[in-house]
């Protein structure tokens, strides 16, 4: 099953991944990371198609994609 992994402490919470995710499954967390941002996270990983669009629009190379 495809999945994405976030390098949480690199995320600056810009939300570009969330906006461009075709499945709309990326949201910002409630919590705060080391940089002081709400990092992006996926709630329903089972809906991930592994398209890697989130990773390609991420300016901080936070996301690793498995398929």
């Amino acid at each position, binding site marked *: 099953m495809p999945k994405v992994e976030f390098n949480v402490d690199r995320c600056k919470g*810009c939300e*570009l991944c969330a906006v461009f995710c075709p499945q709309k499954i990326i949201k910002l967390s409630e919590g705060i990371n080391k940089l002081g941002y709400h990092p992006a996270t996926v709630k329903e990983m089972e809906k991930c198609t592994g398209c890697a669009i989130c990773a390609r*629009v991420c*300016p901080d190379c936070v996301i*690793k994609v*498995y398929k």
Partner: protein
Amino acid sequence: MKVVFERPRALSDVTTHYCPGCTHGIIHRLVAEVIDELGILERTIGVAPVGCAVLAYNYLECDWQQAAHGRAPAVATGIKRALPDRVVFTYQGDGDLASIGTAEIVHAANRGERITVIYVNNAIYGMTGGQMAPTTLEGQVTATSPRGRDIKQAGHPMRMAEMLATLPGVSYLARVAVNKPANIMKAKKAIKQAFMVQIDDLGFGMVEILSTCPTNWGLQPAKAMEWVDEKMIPYYPLGEFKVPGEVK
């Protein structure tokens, strides 16, 4: 399950100083992916500009030289003439390349210098706090054009790709954007071509990349991506302005 996307080897495993949503990060990654795919990390030397990308030398794993403002094409020329079998690229913003460094970029292009230029155009001076750039659009409000850029007073936004494409020394020249996934894929292809014409000894290669500056544009990152479509691309059309016949 296999990894279908991960950090390219040539991209340093560090947090960048760029603002949230700034697309410099995407461009850095694309350059790193191209360096990896071409297998040239160990023979590549980058030239960093003055501007937001001044610290690019911390973010890509190749050798680097940091250049004075606008002088990167001259520095790259010095490196390439000393070491013709190495791959040399500059990474420059619009203040660096299109304002203070116009002489250096025009003459490096005109000599057909075997270098690759990554030209990041975000229509503003980022590092110094959002002042008007040579590429700032008509009517665009910046710290030094508070009533919007007045063409009569400040002249026209400069289209560097079109201007440089007239020079015979240029082998490959394209304008791309990194404001949505499809454009990002095209941007990577263009960057690769601009490196290939150097490696194949065909001439000067440059990619102008329309990039965002959410902080100084005063827009959310996603809105900034839309602004590129709405405002920048109509004035700075995307496409290939020069393509060599014989690129493999």
